[in-house]
């Protein structure tokens, strides 16, 4: 675990000596009930600032009704090397897809 992450208890991410403001990932909810979708990133000094910047960059044409901003450094991502072990083995496991199962007679299919 990265110590820097543990040490930062407030909402201000670590800049790592860079003069640029920290990066934040922006997620927008297009309409009520819909999931928040990643739409891009912004630079900002704190959470409120990130929210305002996200609004100005990604939400000025009625793109959504709710925003999340998350410090980019707090997102743990899989690596290209993970592609095989993470995603490949599913190909031969057809029974994980609903289409694998036959619909019993008498069940109405919509």
């Amino acid at each position, binding site marked *: 675990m990265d110590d820097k992450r543990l040490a930062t208890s407030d909402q201000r991410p670590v800049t790592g000596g860079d003069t640029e403001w920290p990066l934040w990932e922006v997620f927008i909810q297009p309409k009520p009930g819909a999931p928040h979708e990643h739409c891009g990133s912004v630079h900002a000094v704190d959470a*409120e600032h990130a929210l305002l910047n996200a609004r*100005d960059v990604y939400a000025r044409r009625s793109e959504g009704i709710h925003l999340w901003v998350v410090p980019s450094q707090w997102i743990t991502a899989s690596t290209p090397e993970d592609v095989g072990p993470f995603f490949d083995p599913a190909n031969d496991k057809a029974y994980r897809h609903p289409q694998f199962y036959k619909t019993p007679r008498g069940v109405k299919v919509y």
Partner: protein
Amino acid sequence: MALSEYLLRLGDDRLILGHRLSEWCGHGPILEEDIALANISLDLIGQANLLLELAGKVEGQGRTADTLAYFREGVEFRNAQIVELPRGDFAFTIARQFLVSVFEALQLEKLQSSKNADLAGIAAKAFKETRYHVRHSAGWMLKLGDGTTESHDRTQIAIDDLWRFTGELFGNTDETLVEQGIAVDCVSLREPWKREVARVLQAATLTMPDDGFMQRGGREGRHTEHLGHLLAEMQIVARSFPGAEW
């Protein structure tokens, strides 16, 4: 004072401030802020468009928002002088935006219940936008005032320089229009404005200047020398190619 004159005040404040803000387009300190300032600029110009269109309609002389924006001389503009001052550095732009946006938010909140339905409708739309302008500029006041020594000093200088232009915002409004429930008495907005400004300045470790001499004249068409230069740039295309569409 006729209603059209009152609407010109409201519209011109926004048109001129919107134009000043638009000068930052492509020059913002970072991409996100560049877009933010352009957004606010467009909000203000949009509000001006509605208000000036209504002013022309009420006046009944066939003038449109475009005629009023592009074919009036400086002495015919009714904006307060504070909005025509050059954009200055980023601290000056933010400090002015903050002082004016707080005023506009208080004004628009009340104008939403104006007896003039058209004006009330415009105010309702503009109030939402302006609440964001306050949030944006107040956030920057905190960052700049309570930031580095340089950002603090620049912001304090901006507030000091701007202060004598704030009095004009709270000048008298026509009594008849106020009594009819159409206009908002700006004098009554002064105390709530001072409270809000004082709260943010204190949090931003900035000092609120004393009220001294207050500059006036914009509402009567007496402007600083800066308005003429702004109008020259803003009006040149429309005046060179009258009626052109693009």
